[in-house]
């Protein structure tokens, strides 16, 4: 959509993003009171890559294996009825039974909370974790549901109509978080 140049600013550059992930990893270890039952579950797509990165950091710091999973929440969306062409569905894979685990959902941006609501419903169909927490790289405000994150990389207020674009090396060729204000 080629509208007149919307204003876009860098929220996190590559180094700031790396630091944010380091801090998020430490907070997850604190939150989970160790890593014995920890499972990281990324939301497709960028949440999956972020969960992988955070997972590697935790593994280095703690010298343990942290199981990772991915979920695609498309089939649990509350607006599936309303979207035009049906969205492409990504892969869902969870590392075994979640019963008794502390699942940390990882996503790139927390906005309305509807994605997280869908993820909670979907996880419930895979078992009964002891606890579920939420970890996001950016919280941009604008919630439409009573949901909040336990671990946040960066908080920023972005008006409706604006966007937060999370670019990551594995998918986009570089690490950067950009805020695009409504033109």
């Amino acid at each position, binding site marked *: 959509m080629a509208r007149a140049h919307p204003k876009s600013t860098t929220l996190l550059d590559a180094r700031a993003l790396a630091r944010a992930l380091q801090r998020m990893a430490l907070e997850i270890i604190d939150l989970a009171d160790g890593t014995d039952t920890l499972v990281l579950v990324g939301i497709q797509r960028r949440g999956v890559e972020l969960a992988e990165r955070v997972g590697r950091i935790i593994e280095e710091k703690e010298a343990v294996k942290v199981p990772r999973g991915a979920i*695609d*929440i*498309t*089939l*649990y*969306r*509350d*607006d*599936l*009825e*309303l*979207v*035009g*062409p*049906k969205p*492409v*569905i*990504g*892969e*869902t*894979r969870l590392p075994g039974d979640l019963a008794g685990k502390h699942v940390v959902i990882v996503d790139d*941006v927390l*906005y*309305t909370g*509807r*994605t997280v609501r*869908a993820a909670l*419903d*979907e996880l419930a*169909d*895979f*078992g009964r974790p002891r606890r579920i927490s939420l970890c996001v790289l950016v919280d941009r405000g604008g919630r*439409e549901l009573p949901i909040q994150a336990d671990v946040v990389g960066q908080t920023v207020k972005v008006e*409706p109509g604006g966007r937060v674009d999370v670019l990551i090396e594995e998918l986009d060729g570089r690490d950067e978080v950009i805020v695009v204000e409504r033109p």
Partner: protein
Amino acid sequence: MTVTLGKDLVGLEFLSADQLRLILDTAEPFKEVSERPIKKVPALRGKTIVNLFFEPSTRTRISFEFAEKRLSADTVNVAVSGSSVSKGETLVDTAKNLEAMRIDMVVIRHGASGAAQFLGNRIRSNVINAGDGKHEHPTQGLLDMLTIRDKLGKIEGVNVCLVGDILHSRVARSNLWGLTKLGARVAVCGPRSLLPRGIEQLGVRVFGRIEEAIEWADVLNVLRLQLERMEKGFIPSLREYYRVFGVTMERLERAPRALTIMHPGPMNRGVEIDSRVADGPHSVILDQVTNGVAVRMAVLYLLAGGRPELADAAKGGVE
């Protein structure tokens, strides 16, 4: 341009390669849903689907019903016997009455070629063809294609031979349209009396002998020989058919490479296929059944609802 399917799925003949790929790619994540502890996702919650079967069917009807239920749709099965259809109600009247009860989709199996299209043109609900006469059986064609892609990693350039009664087979037709669009080479093999006249003109190779077909093919899709074909004089006898066209272990052992063996079911063991082949290492017959549910989930998902005019109202929904 985003690829969509439109309102109905009547056949593969008029679908583009992109539309076929969309369905096959969408089927992939649905395979995993059937492996979950709770085999159900809420994607079609609140939708009502009628399975309208004017011909007997076990496998296809059950497969559709699983697909519908795993998407959380509400389903009603209407079979021909004991319904007002046998009292002479027309197809459209039946469907209009169902529609008056606020249904969303119809899955139809009918003995008349073109029945699904006819219905789709006359009702607002989405219509999915589950087999119409000798015309098409699109979801069977799709699950065959998905199975080939799973097994061989691709469809393009694969040699697929359909064996048996091509003349009366809607499965053969759907396979033919779908596979050729995605770049497979398709051949047929069977008694002359069971091959449509002029089929060569569709770019299809014809093998008169099963040994030649086995030498050429990567995949044999062995079709069911309808037993009534013998009564009507298309073939001299079942034993004769098996002797000449039966897919046997002995014949496969002489093949230059390992073949993948498919069959849409239900099988006549010892007529078109040897039991040892059907249960053997190269058979993907049960994979076809598993894939059938995934493909039907994909089709239902892609066709259902989709009311873009409401999309504006939902702006700012899921990020």
